[in-house]
């Protein structure tokens, strides 16, 4: 997955994928993120969605699963830099207010510092 960027801040894991998030990539994305989380003690995951030009319900399921996993262990999952297509798709299924979406770039920087 050459379009995948993973980095570690002081307390948050940054995860960014550039491309389409559909059924043919979500199992691998989930596997990679789960592997990172298993090997690192982080308080939060920050999912950068700026490079996602297309996302289907499988992609939505991926976001929900990570959000559920983090919340279940008392940690946080943030979405940031939503592309217009991602924003539209999450809006369609009324999940924009369900996720913790970080809109302010300064807040994103603070999470990743």
């Amino acid at each position, binding site marked *: 997955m050459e379009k995948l960027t993973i980095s570690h801040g002081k307390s948050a894991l940054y995860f960014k994928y550039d491309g*389409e998030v*559909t*059924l*043919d990539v979500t199992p691998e994305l989930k596997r990679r993120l789960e592997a990172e989380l298993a090997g690192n003690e982080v308080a939060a995951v920050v999912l950068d969605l700026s490079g996602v030009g*297309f996302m*289907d*319900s*499988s992609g*939505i*399921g991926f976001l*929900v*699963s990570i959000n*559920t996993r983090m919340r279940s262990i008392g940690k946080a999952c943030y979405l940031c830099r939503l592309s217009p*297509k991602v924003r*539209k*798709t999450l809006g*369609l*299924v*009324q*999940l924009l207010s*369900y996720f913790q979406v970080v809109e302010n770039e300064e807040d994103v920087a603070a999470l990743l510092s």
Partner: protein
Amino acid sequence: MIRRIFEAPSAPEQSRGLAREVVGFLGNHLSDTNILHDLDIMLTEACANVARHAYGGGEGRLEVRLALVPGESVDLEIVDWGRGFDGPVRFVNPEPEAEGGRGLFIISRLSDAVAVRSEGRENIVAIHKKIGKTSWKS
């Protein structure tokens, strides 16, 4: 009316490729990128449903039948020959915590009409979308 039939194996990668192929063809006729994106999502959801459910985890035949009336509408039929639909089909948005089950709801939100039916061995998701004259290439 213009009619085309597209076909691919139902594996996830090929089913997404099939949706892209159909949208590529539609791009020859439609100029509105937002509508093309809506059609792309609907096709991808319907084809992914076939990849996930139709053949019990295995691969089978997947077909998209396209009929477009320039200046008016697009009709899409996504067809498989698998095990068919389990019970009544619901077009509702599941709970936020659900990891799946949103495909048909998304299609219903983006289309003007969607119907699910079986004819003989064919299982068909039929989508109708009206598209105004200004969204077509001249």
